[in-house]
């Protein structure tokens, strides 16, 4: 093997020689097993080496966005897999793409770019499939410090996955098999001779960039490269040389010898999430992440990938830092930790009640949180406690959401100091009760300013940032059960919340094509501080107001629906991208009635509340 291990052929080249999107990359050629691999390097070679392996039908340029974001911290290395991009193809093609040969290539590149230290491997699609081979074969042991896998299972694990489902075919397992079977349609096509090559070199190759844009929402630009038709034609042999043999006879000892981070795009059209259900059996040190995106995440979600890769690499470079991670205090649902770990979440009205509970829930899941409130002390307290329960970073910001300029300043500050918000929770709100004819225009103004304009400002300034970044996100607006339950007691409040509900629905329609979800949460009667600060229209005596506040607070206390459950509903809504979420039983009942029998709700609306 040592004889085969690559020697560098060409020295450093710069500028025009390198492919588009990888400006400033140093390029060299590594010769191994009769072919030449084109290897590009970015960043300081004394830093830990991150080796990015591309998939099918791609070349190393698929990583350009991610590589650019990692280059200031790491020694980033990319190479064109044999037969792809500017690497040469084996002759003959048949039998030249086996996983064994791909492993030779990897070892040659790793030895050339990082002879003394193990590399951090990152693979997408077929890059991940072959990296699984590297990380599970003994001869690569000690050469890999960590592996981040996205959208590419190990063929051995896949083989066992199929076998276990065939031997014990429960209905659920059969469903999983059929589901993945349908998603793998292109694999069958690629096994037909000649036709795929003809299609790729002909019409499919020409239309592919447009197809990617339309179906996969891959942003247009210098990707895919002009070598696509030959990449795709050669790459068909990746499937033909490996899939049938490996799936029929999967290795029994395919255990990973390095820590693995698995990033699963939940909208992947080619790979089912269920493929990774048994992965813990094969990987002793497994970290799972999920990302609401389609298959080509290196193009569509480079920021998030770069952040997760960097975090994982650093954790495995310095084992001490990894041990010092604060243990989550409560029992966090793994689905939340996988989805929200390391993401940036901003919550308004975070000094108390639902906002605070939501901030804590995100913090517990490992998100970075920004707690925004008028109450500086309360927001600071929320941020402080968030750090204690697992948020890697937490900040407090004092802003009145009704103040447009303050919100714009906040958005600018957040973007420059903490980054673009991944999840925005517009939660701040105030209560106002009393008959319409008793409500002054001042009171109306204040309620609409906070409850409606606060949400509008939030959606406008942060939604614009999300859309501009173009890497998805989620907006949660706290509406209310009063949004669909009319009431003579809450005209102003209900109006503001109904507006929030409709705003959320409209915004959801508008932002869907950007991959930004919008959810409206309708909690109902929840035991929070909103009752102790609520205003009562027509009540001028402060003592009487106090008495009413106490009375309502007592009633809400007796109902005692905890804000933590609303927080959980919010996280679930983001996870599942739900549109309208009534939370308490009374809110769910009212929501149902509003569709089944609105007249009943109207009758309820006439009930006069006791003073």
């Amino acid at each position, binding site marked *: 093997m040592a004889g085969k291990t690559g020697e560098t052929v060409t020295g450093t080249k710069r500028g025009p020689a390198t492919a588009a999107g990888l400006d400033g990359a140093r390029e060299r050629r590594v010769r191994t097993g009769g072919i030449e691999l084109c290897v590009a390097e970015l960043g300081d070679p004394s830093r830990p080496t991150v080796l990015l392996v591309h998939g099918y039908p791609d070349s190393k340029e698929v990583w350009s966005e991610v590589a650019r974001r990692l280059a200031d911290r790491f020694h980033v290395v990319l190479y064109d897999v044999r037969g792809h991009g500017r690497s040469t193809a084996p002759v003959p093609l048949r039998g030249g793409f086996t996983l064994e040969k791909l492993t030779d290539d990897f070892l040659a590149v790793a030895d050339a770019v990082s002879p003394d230290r193990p590399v951090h491997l990152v693979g997408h699609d077929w890059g991940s499939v072959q990296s699984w081979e590297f990380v599970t074969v003994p001869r690569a042991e000690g050469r890999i410090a960590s592996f981040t896998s996205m959208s590419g299972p190990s063929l051995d694990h896949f083989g066992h996955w199929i076998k276990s489902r065939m031997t014990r075919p429960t209905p659920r397992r059969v469903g999983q098999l059929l589901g993945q079977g349908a998603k793998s349609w292109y694999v069958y096509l690629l096994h037909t001779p000649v036709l795929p090559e003809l299609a790729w070199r002909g019409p499919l190759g020409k239309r592919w960039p447009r197809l990617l844009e339309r179906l996969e929402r891959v942003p247009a630009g210098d990707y895919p490269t002009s070598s696509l038709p030959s990449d795709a034609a050669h790459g068909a042999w990746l499937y033909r040389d490996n899939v049938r043999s490996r799936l029929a006879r999967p290795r029994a000892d395919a255990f990973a010898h390095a820590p693995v981070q698995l990033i699963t795009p939940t909208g992947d059209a080619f790979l089912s999430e269920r493929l990774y259900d048994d992965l813990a059996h094969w990987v002793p040190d497994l970290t799972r992440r999920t990302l609401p995106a389609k298959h080509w995440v290196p193009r569509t979600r480079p920021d998030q990938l770069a952040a997760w890769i960097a975090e994982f690499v650093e954790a495995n470079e310095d084992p001490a830092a990894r041990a010092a991670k*604060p*243990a989550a*205090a*409560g*029992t966090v649902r793994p689905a939340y930790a996988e989805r929200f770990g390391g993401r940036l979440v901003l919550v308004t009205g975070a000094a*108390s009640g639902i906002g*605070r509970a939501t901030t*804590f829930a995100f913090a*517990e899941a490992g998100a970075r949180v920004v707690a925004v409130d008028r109450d500086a002390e*309360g927001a600071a*307290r*929320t941020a402080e*406690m968030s750090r*204690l*329960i697992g948020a890697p970073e937490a900040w407090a910001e004092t802003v009145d959401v009704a103040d447009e300029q303050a919100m714009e300043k906040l958005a600018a500050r957040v973007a420059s100091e903490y980054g673009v918000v991944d999840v925005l929770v517009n939660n701040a709100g105030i209560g106002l009760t009393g008959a319409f004819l008793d409500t002054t225009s001042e009171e109306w103004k204040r309620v609409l300013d906070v409850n409606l304009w606060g949400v509008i400002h939030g959606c406008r300034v942060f939604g614009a940032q999300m859309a501009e970044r173009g890497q998805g996100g989620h907006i949660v607006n706290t509406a209310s059960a009063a949004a669909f339950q009319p009431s003579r007691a809450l005209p102003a409040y209900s109006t503001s919340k109904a507006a929030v509900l409709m705003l959320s629905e409209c915004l959801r329609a508008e932002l869907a094509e950007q991959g930004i979800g919008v959810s409206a949460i309708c909690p109902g009667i929840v035991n929070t*501080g909103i009752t102790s600060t609520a205003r009562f229209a027509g009540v001028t005596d402060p003592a009487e107001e106090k008495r009413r506040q106490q009375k309502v607070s007592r009633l809400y206390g007796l109902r005692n629906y*905890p804000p*933590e459950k609303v927080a959980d509903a919010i996280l679930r809504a983001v996870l599942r991208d739900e549109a309208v979420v009534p939370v308490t039983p009374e809110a769910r009942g009212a929501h149902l009635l509003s569709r089944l029998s609105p007249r009943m709700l109207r009758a309820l609306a006439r009930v006069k509340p006791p003073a």
Partner: protein
Amino acid sequence: MTSAGTAVTRELTAELRGFRDVQRLAYACAEAVAAQLRPGVTEREAARMQREWLYARGVRDWFHRPFAWFGDRTAFVGFKVPLQFFPTNRRLEPGMPFILDMAPVHRGHTADVGYSGCLGLNPVHDKLLADLREHRELILREVRERRPLREIYQDVDRLMVRQGYANRHRAYPFGVIAHKIDRVKERRWSPTLFGFGTQALKGLASDALHGHREGWSPLWSPYTFSDHPPRPGLWAVEPHLGFRGTGAKFEEILVVTDSRDPEQSAFWLDDDLPHVRRWNEEGTAA
């Protein structure tokens, strides 16, 4: 009234020492048992260790038998029925918070103490414990102001909400933050009923009856029957904070007298207790 009051105060001092001694004994037990806790010890074993330690030192009767709560049971997560307070086979793990709660009767004096700790490092637990200090100060201040017990309860509640915590003493029977304790007659046979000493229960019931007639209650709760100024006597005060699966409390005796001097009208029986020492050390360190 005044002369009778001072007479009572003077008479109490001898007796107070008895209460203080048994409270110290109970805290010594808590510290001794806490020092012996290892990963894998169950709540039942921890409760038995407390019982045996105290039995060896002459405790024969209980206000209530020792409790031990580990992990998220310190915050009473998912507690629906009172039977869930009793020790289970939950095992202690590194980083887990725990609470030891016992109320021994020794030489006729009762104490009721709660000791919070954790096995190894747990920053959340440390924070909760540090934040309990404010509650201890608030309760004493407002009792000295002779505010109705129910209002004090609500102020403690508000402070907890402001701190971001859940009120977990609400889970106790009648949601009490404190209850009266008193002398107990020493009998040769002292049975317990659902973990509570029958002698102590008898005292509590008799207090409840008298209180009902006179408009006060031996239970310090959020309900209207606690809407009265602090009643002279000994109160075992137990604010209990909960935060996402971690709970912390202290429990110690607050002496309430009918003295006109605010300093003398209410005071903590003993300021040399583990949690107070801890706060003082933190204070000097900072």
